[in-house]
């Protein structure tokens, strides 16, 4: 007699393919997942609670540590929210610098995803290519602000450091060479039979489901929804530049892969234009009161991070510290769909689907 038994399998929290300390408990019937329960909070540091006793400038380094793969966009969402509350003007040169580092960051973040995702699926060498090119971006950031990962670069009203001598030219050189690298990536991976058979049609959902789950970023756009906050609710200087919003059609892991690679290309386009029009001189800090006290009120500001809509909700009582600060973290919201996607899938696809969502645990747990 054949006896089958339900198997309870614990994945993580310490496991390389969970991209951080994320744990998921799966119930298995043979190799098929019948139930998946995510467990989070291993990296919860109480950022929002801590922020209530810090002034706004002191909170900026905490945002670096949320989505530590994309610290620049996190910096921006906080300072942008405070600037909007106070009605501050940011000098053009500072805003250009911000936009340039945010787009470089988007490329760096997508490269980390590309490399580690292929590592998850079983291809080692793309990881080395991706991290090699990402290293050049980190080097540029290092020259700009002296840090490789947690930049603490932006300030309310501007940026902390002006670009050093020759920096803009070095970014230009990077952008030019990165186009060629993308072709190399495509040749190396995008058409690979084994790779395609692992991710095509896996983890698919339609646009309606994506919207119901509040997905954003490539997770939403892979279903064909053309929604990018840089276009739909423009902030910073994005309205001045030409770029497209790449979308997929089938909403599977393969489309998410294609969308992210296409987004790197679009970021390069934005960078090309921004570097060309970079103001030769100008201030890097606007007129900002010595103590930053946003007027009483509340605001919800959102921007397009590499992972989707990152938002900052501030309730101010007119003091130097926020009364309440909440971050809408795209990784946290995007991850919600995971249990739904896993049910009925084979165990081998767990890592493929989880990796395709592109989460950063520092942001999930905050």
């Amino acid at each position, binding site marked *: 007699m054949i006896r089958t038994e339900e198997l309870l399998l614990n994945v993580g929290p310490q496991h390389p393919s969970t991209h951080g300390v994320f744990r998921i408990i799966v119930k298995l019937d043979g190799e098929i997942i019948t139930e998946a329960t995510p467990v*989070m*909070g291993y990296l*919860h540091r*109480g950022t*929002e*609670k801590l922020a209530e006793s810090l002034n706004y400038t002191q909170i900026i380094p905490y945002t670096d540590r949320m989505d530590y793969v994309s610290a620049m966009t996190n910096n921006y969402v906080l300072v942008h929210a405070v600037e*909007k*509350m*106070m*009605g501050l003007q940011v000098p053009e040169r500072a805003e250009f610098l911000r936009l340039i580092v945010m787009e470089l960051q988007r490329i760096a973040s997508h490269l980390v995803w590309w490399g580690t995702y292929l590592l998850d699926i079983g291809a080692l060498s793309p990881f080395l290519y991706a991290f090699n090119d990402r290293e050049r971006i980190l080097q540029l950031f290092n020259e700009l602000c002296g840090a490789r990962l947690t930049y603490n670069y932006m300030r309310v009203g501007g940026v902390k450091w002006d670009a050093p001598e020759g920096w803009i030219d070095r970014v230009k050189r990077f952008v030019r060479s990165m186009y060629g690298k993308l072709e190399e990536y495509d040749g190396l991976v995008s058409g690979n039979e084994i790779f395609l058979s692992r991710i095509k049609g896996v983890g698919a959902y339609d646009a309606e489901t994506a*919207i*119901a*789950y*509040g997905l954003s970023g490539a997770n939403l756009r892979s279903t064909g*929804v053309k*929604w990018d906050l840089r276009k*739909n*609710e423009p902030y910073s200087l994005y309205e001045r530049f030409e770029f497209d919003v790449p979308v997929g059609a089938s909403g599977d892991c393969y489309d998410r892969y294609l969308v992210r690679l296409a987004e790197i290309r679009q970021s390069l386009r934005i960078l090309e234009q921004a570097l060309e029009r970079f103001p030769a001189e100008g201030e890097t800090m606007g007129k900002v009161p010595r103590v930053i006290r946003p*007027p*009483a*009120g*509340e*605001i*919800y*500001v*959102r921007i397009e991070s590499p992972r989707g*809509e990152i*938002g900052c*909700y501030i*309730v101010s009582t*007119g003091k130097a510290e926020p*009364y*309440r600060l*909440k971050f*809408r973290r795209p990784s*946290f*919201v995007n*991850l*919600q769909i995971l249990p739904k996607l896993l049910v009925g899938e084979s165990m081998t696809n767990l890592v493929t689907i989880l990796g395709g969502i592109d989460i950063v645990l520092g942001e999930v*747990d*905050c």
Partner: protein
Amino acid sequence: MSGEEQNEAKRRQVGANSESERAGATGAANSGPQAEAPPPKPPSPGQERLDRAVRLLRELVAEDAVEAASINEANGHLPTIVVKNERWPQAARLFRSHGELNANYLRNVAGVDYETHMEVVYYLLNMASGHNYAVKVRTGREAPSVPSATPVWETANWNEREIYDLLGIDFPGHPDLRRIMMPDDWEGHPLRKDYVPLDPEV
């Protein structure tokens, strides 16, 4: 003595000035009757949508469904509506399915402890038109409770769990309300303003 008094009066005046300046800059509050009469403000571009949403809520949900309505000017003239707690499930369905409001995307959910009461703010978006709404639901601080929006927007699920975890607000109707960030055996809800850390030394 009199010098000190003068200084004190001056300081107060300066304070008042900067207060009214700030209010003027953001247009968030009236500068009060004692200030010069401000020029009449042009109607907010969000006013029409706010009025329309309020009227729909009153007509289709209940006459008393709306507790307050305002425009958040600093936030891009965002229509902000406070919905009566027990009317929220119906109001949420109306926001989601009414052809005109059609708020199919829930952007964000935030909970706030105001010490006098608690509040949950839902940021809604109509993706087709790009229209945003902020909907607030208030509750008392003793046994705080807000009807869950998860049956209407799946996005609310983990967001409400997080608010329950950190602020202690109950969400009746939620399919799986348990802690999400803190350990299961944690005592208290850290984001509450009256939260006392277990061990203040740490």
